[in-house]
């Protein structure tokens, strides 16, 4: 059976004014399942500023110009003040922090560190990304073009590989004119494409176009208000897909601007602006989802942390361990999960960076198992049990 018959069927339903939820049920019996959302904070987030170890006696001497105390998380850690939107989620135990987390074989090159992390192979580039390997285990996604979505301009390395995945900048952009010179003709042209990547990408594109129309205009629920930033728009679109029940299991998006070599700032400044956006976006997403947040787990990732010491230009250089947030779906929140290494010279990695005591793959492995019931996407790696969920 070709695509056409299914699509024609959908068109005829739409003509009779059948609503989106009905269409959805007609499409497939999508079981209520969990969704994993990863947000890659590109540039290397200064974890020591994002979640500050104010109880560490060495902190003040290392970076007097970068400390800004915000809401306390426990007797040792506090949030950056620009992240205060996250404090209520932490208090409601919907948010956990993981600190001194990073890669087993770190690199201080953005491009290496991002690729290593997204490959999930510790110090190597692979042919596919760890999220794609998770998808491969989920089996074929026929009829669910939105089972996985990268809400950004292009597919990140973590999602590239054999399993098809969809990248789109926004839901609103995702349409092709209908009629005989529109989507049906392109569908036929791409069905015969010689280039395999174009053929499967075309297939996903035209399936997806069918489903997004009504969702793109859905207003935020529960009075949620998103910052008008790229991340805000992307998370709002992700919430729409969750509300639309299109079978979203895995989503990836990203935010940039965390490479703060210069004039990083404390209460205010470059980093504070970026963190404020992140905190408000996450808080809005949680509010928008409401009770559905139980079905969604959000992780923030970054390629590396930054130097423990302030550099010569009132910023920080590329470092090693950083911090992560885990929000929503069944997380045992309200705590900072960390085997704190200490900031004295003897414990700094190469005498300059916060050392890694938690392998980021252990966090990812638990989130993948909890959300997707998928195991073993990190070859030659036995994750330590963190008990995040």
């Amino acid at each position, binding site marked *: 059976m070709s695509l056409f018959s299914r699509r024609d069927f959908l068109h005829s339903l739409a003509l009779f004014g059948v609503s989106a939820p009905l269409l959805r049920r007609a499409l497939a019996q999508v079981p209520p399942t969990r969704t994993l959302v990863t947000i890659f904070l*590109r540039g290397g987030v200064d974890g020591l500023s994002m979640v500050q170890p104010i109880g560490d006696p060495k902190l003040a001497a290392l970076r007097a110009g970068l400390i800004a105390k915000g809401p306390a998380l426990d007797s040792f850690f506090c949030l950056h003040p620009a992240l205060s939107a996250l404090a209520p989620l932490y208090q409601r135990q919907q948010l956990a922090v993981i600190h001194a987390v990073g890669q087993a074989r770190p690199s*201080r*090159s*953005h*491009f*290496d560190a991002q690729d290593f992390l997204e490959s999930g192979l510790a110090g190597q580039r692979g042919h596919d990304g760890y999220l794609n390997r998770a998808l491969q285990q989920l089996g074929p996604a026929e009829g669910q*073009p939105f089972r996985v979505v*990268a809400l950004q*301009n*292009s*597919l990140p390395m973590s999602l*590239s590989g054999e399993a098809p995945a*969809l*990248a*789109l*900048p926004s839901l609103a*952009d*995702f*349409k*092709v*004119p209908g*009629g*005989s*010179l529109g989507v*049906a*003709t*392109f569908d*036929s*042209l*791409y069905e*015969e*494409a*010689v*280039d395999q*990547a*174009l*053929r499967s*990408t*075309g297939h*996903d*594109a035209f399936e*997806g*176009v069918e489903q997004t129309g009504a969702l793109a205009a859905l207003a935020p629920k529960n009075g949620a208000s998103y910052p008008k930033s790229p991340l805000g728009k992307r998370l709002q679109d992700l919430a729409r897909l969750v509300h639309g029940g299109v079978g979203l299991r895995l989503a990836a998006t990203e935010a*940039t*601007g965390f490479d703060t*070599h*210069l004039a990083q700032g404390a209460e205010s400044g470059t980093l504070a602006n970026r963190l404020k956006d992140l905190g408000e976006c996450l808080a809005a997403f949680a509010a928008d989802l409401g009770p559905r947040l139980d079905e969604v787990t959000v992780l923030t990732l970054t390629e590396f942390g930054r130097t423990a010491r302030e*550099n*010569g*230009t009132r910023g920080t*250089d*590329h470092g090693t361990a950083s911090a992560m947030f885990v929000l929503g779906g069944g997380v045992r929140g309200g705590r900072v999960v960390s085997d704190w290494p200490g900031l004295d010279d003897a414990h700094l990695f*190469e005498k300059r960076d916060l050392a890694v005591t938690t392998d980021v793959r252990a966090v990812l492995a638990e989130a993948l198992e909890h959300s997707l019931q998928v195991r073993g996407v990190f070859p030659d790696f036995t994750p330590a049990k963190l008990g995040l969920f």
Partner: protein
Amino acid sequence: MSVCLGACATAAPPVPAKVAPSVRLPEGVPLDVTHLLNRAAFGPSPADVERVQRLGVAAWLDEQLAPGVDPKVEHRLSGFKTLQLTVAQAYEAYPPPKQRLKELGIDPALAKTDEAVKEQVKALRKDEKDTLPRELLIEATQAKLHRVIQSQRQLEEVLVDFWFNHFNVSAEKGRTRWMVTAFEREAIRPYVLGRFRDLLGATAKHPAMLMYLDNWQSVRDGFEPKGKQKDKLPHGLNENYARELLELHTLGVDAGYTQLDVREAARALTGWSLEREKSGEFGKFLFRAQAHDTGPKRIFGLEVPAGGGQSDGEALLDFVARHPATAHHLALQLCQRFVGDEPPAALVDRVAAEFLRTDGDLRATVRTIFESREFWSPEAMASKTKTPLEFVASAVRAVGQLDEVQQPLAQVLERMGMAQYRCGPPTGYSDLARPWVSAGALVTRINFGLQLAAGRVRGVDVALPPAGSAPAATIDAVSLRVLGRLPSAQTRGVIEHALRARAEETGDEQTTTANPQLIAGLLLGSPEFQKQ
């Protein structure tokens, strides 16, 4: 200010001493003009197809590899206000809004809080909207599109795009906004057919690079700035440029250097800085001897003795520019651009050898690629996926003439994730297919193609072959124009079917079944047109 045309736009290029010999093409391989123009140009345009056919492939390549200017394009761009400005002139004529307020005695802090001042500022911004810094980027992007679409110096434009991307700087970072236009004009364009060492040196000393990768602020350990601004001045080493110099610009990440080599390289480059805004010569290269680390350095086998100054950095650039790892890294990237995402290793080795043999003569290096059998092989043809820039430029070149670049044309690149002069990471944009093949990107390309062919992209005049006697003949004629070849039987069949269905819907059989614009719109969005 004067606008500089013709010879003075190319006054600086160091031309290798000997006259380049004529390109020697491999024998016994079909010389496919569409393939040539897809790689050595931004796709076939009717005028360039005609020119290659008239001159022959070797003579056309000779012409492209020789220095020259396209007077028509230069004339077209002479009306632009910002393309020839120095960094200091650009900064003076298009000042940051906050600074403009200070000049007028308005406290920028009040502009946020005081309603009356807010109104005053709003009115001012409206009056002076043509001197806002964003004009610099708008003009730079428009000029870029003019050149890649219209210039007869197509290979030079491909190389300018390649090398700018190789030495990427982004207008999004601080004062770099006032520098990207000058960077392309002063540090990239004059050298793309010259020597790599000169290109490397020009980028290393250009304010855009010094600013974008922070080296202007990198000073020796223990340096204490003096004067009343001292708290605002840098104190300490910044490794950012040194790292990207080794990883991206020269040796490549797998060359085997260590974190210590990066640090030693950064020490060698301490003091490489620039004149500040108030100096009257903003952006001019400046070596700050007091900030330079004069100790000995050892960088990946290079010994730099103690007591040096600016020469330490020059010695480092000499060393990395001629290193075999650099030759291999650059050869691989050039072959990925011109031949395929996974180019044959033997070709990469030959191109690297030519680079080393000629002491980094980029004309000879590029010529080696066009002289290879691998370039003309069936495996290379239509094997690469177009980047968004290549897609947009080749689409406009195929269907018509660019009259004027208006914002929608510039913005479509941004929507496709390839905003010009604003690529944040120092890697630049990828030349490979993977990052650009996504459902979202495909939908954007399809929509752009339909709008372009229908004449709905402002500034582009569409001129397609006329409708023929039968739909199939029209499809073939338009396909020859758009794809540079006849369509596959399947594509022809799908389009014929679509046109018939359309004619039935509209009842207007005559015009619809053979409408060249409809056909071109479908072809621009087809999988064949996404390849090159």
